[in-house]
């Protein structure tokens, strides 16, 4: 029985769109009961979890045996390089470790880029039928944005020595862990291993109430709030934007921003709750981002597992590199702002394969850089009235309103050109 035939058999069953289809919950219930009832200790437990991960992924409508082979290959390469950085002849030679780690990161980025950017895919994959899709269209590899970032984390931490002697089964389960596979949260390897050890022993009841409660919150957001909100958003309204007054268009934009947040935080609730039922804790992604006083705070509390990843693996390494420059060292604010703008440029490129996502990233990077400049200016102000204002509820409320508006306006960048023209035509 090949992977493709298993995949075809699973696709013959009702579609298991993660978290939003009845079939997913039916399969998930079987997986939870099976994993909780069967012995979970040691290698047998890890193999069972791997089996569950593979079957759940193969049941995804956008996934197939070829996609699993690509992920298998990506994991093997990541694991192999991670292991070589830990032990063996290469690990003992400091001059070889850095090039090896860079090679690993470049390879993972290459796979990400091929399945993210149409022009690169056309260039690299002339014959796409080898991937089993049989289509000449763009091949979207579901979960690649998240898995590649997890793989890069694995490689960098193996290089730093914080991941020690990883096991292949752990690495496979980490990269293919189905509750976090499609859209995160982007968890960390050592946390996953600690939770995996705990999951093998944790009593069912400890995780059930917390997991089920989280799943109910997520379902409520997805099946009630977003369903109510969607018809009023820019992308869901049935009324042509050209027939709306500017204030109505603005309300639709606000509804879209709220929809975006509730939809994604609902997804995160479902992922965290599902993982908890299996005995795993996934990191949080949101902490009331739209109630924060400035854009910097908003981003520190929005999609936190991604911003944490970008901070650790892009922002700080860039800051350290820029600090090593004699001339720039005297200007810490310039260093910080340059690093933020580059980080958000990459954040935009990660979010979407088109130029407007890069503009969206730059827009936020420049916005946070402006907040940084403002914060520096604020620290120099000595006027008692101004100091009183900075700590007042009014200042906080104004900050919340401005940050939310800035974020909502940023969503215009990711609309298609026709929608954008209609919105701009009505607003300005």
């Amino acid at each position, binding site marked *: 029985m090949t992977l493709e035939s298993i995949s075809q058999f699973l696709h013959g069953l009702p579609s298991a769109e993660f978290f939003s289809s009845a079939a997913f919950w039916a399969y998930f219930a079987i997986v939870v009961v099976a994993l909780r009832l069967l012995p979970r200790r040691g290698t047998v437990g890890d193999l069972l979890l791997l089996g569950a991960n593979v079957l759940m992924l193969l049941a995804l409508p956008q996934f197939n045996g070829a996609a699993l082979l690509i992920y298998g290959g990506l994991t093997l390469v990541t694991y192999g390089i991670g292991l070589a950085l830990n032990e063996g002849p290469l690990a003992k030679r400091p001059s070889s470790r850095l090039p090896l780690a860079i090679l690993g990161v470049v390879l993972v980025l290459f796979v990400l880029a091929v399945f993210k950017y149409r022009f690169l895919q056309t260039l690299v994959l002339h014959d796409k039928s080898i991937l089993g899709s049989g289509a000449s269209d763009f091949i979207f590899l579901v979960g690649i944005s998240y898995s590649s970032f997890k793989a890069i984390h694995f490689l960098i931490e193996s290089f730093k020595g914080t991941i020690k002697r990883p096991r292949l089964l752990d690495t496979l389960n980490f990269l293919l862990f189905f509750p976090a596979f499609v859209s995160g949260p982007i968890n960390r390897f050592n946390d996953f291993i600690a939770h995996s050890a705990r999951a093998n022993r944790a009593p069912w009841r400890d995780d059930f109430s917390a997991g089920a409660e989280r799943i109910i919150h997520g379902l409520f957001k997805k099946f009630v709030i*977003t369903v109510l909100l969607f018809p009023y958003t820019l992308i869901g309204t049935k009324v042509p934007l050209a027939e709306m007054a500017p204030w109505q268009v603005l309300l639709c934009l606000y509804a879209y921003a709220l929809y975006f947040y509730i939809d994604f935080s609902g997804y995160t609730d479902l992922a965290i709750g599902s993982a908890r039922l299996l005995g795993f804790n996934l990191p949080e992604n949101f902490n009331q981002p739209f109630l924060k006083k400035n854009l910097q705070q908003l981003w520190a509390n929005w999609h936190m597992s991604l911003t944490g990843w970008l901070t650790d693996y892009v922002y700080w390494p860039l800051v350290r590199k820029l600090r090593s420059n004699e001339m720039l060292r005297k200007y810490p604010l310039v260093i910080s702002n340059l690093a933020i703008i580059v980080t958000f440029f990459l954040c935009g490129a990660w*979010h979407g394969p088109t130029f407007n996502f890069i503009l969206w990233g730059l827009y936020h990077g420049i916005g946070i850089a402006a907040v940084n400049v403002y914060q520096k200016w604020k620290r120099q102000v000595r006027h008692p009235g101004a100091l009183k204002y900075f700590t007042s509820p009014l200042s906080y409320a104004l900050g919340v309103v401005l940050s939310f508006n800035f974020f909502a306006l940023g969503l215009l960048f990711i609309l298609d050109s026709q929608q954008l023209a209609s919105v701009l035509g009505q607003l300005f």
Partner: protein
Amino acid sequence: MKMLRALFHENRKLILVTLEVFWIVIFLLDRVSSGGGSGIPQFVYVNF
């Protein structure tokens, strides 16, 4: 009133979850009765 408030605070989590389950069931029943016509938009981040 005070007693009611205290009762609400004590059982806040349970009340909230019950209400959420109630509305989820209502919306799902509505979806089933309308033949799934209203539709649930796909998760925003799935295509990222």
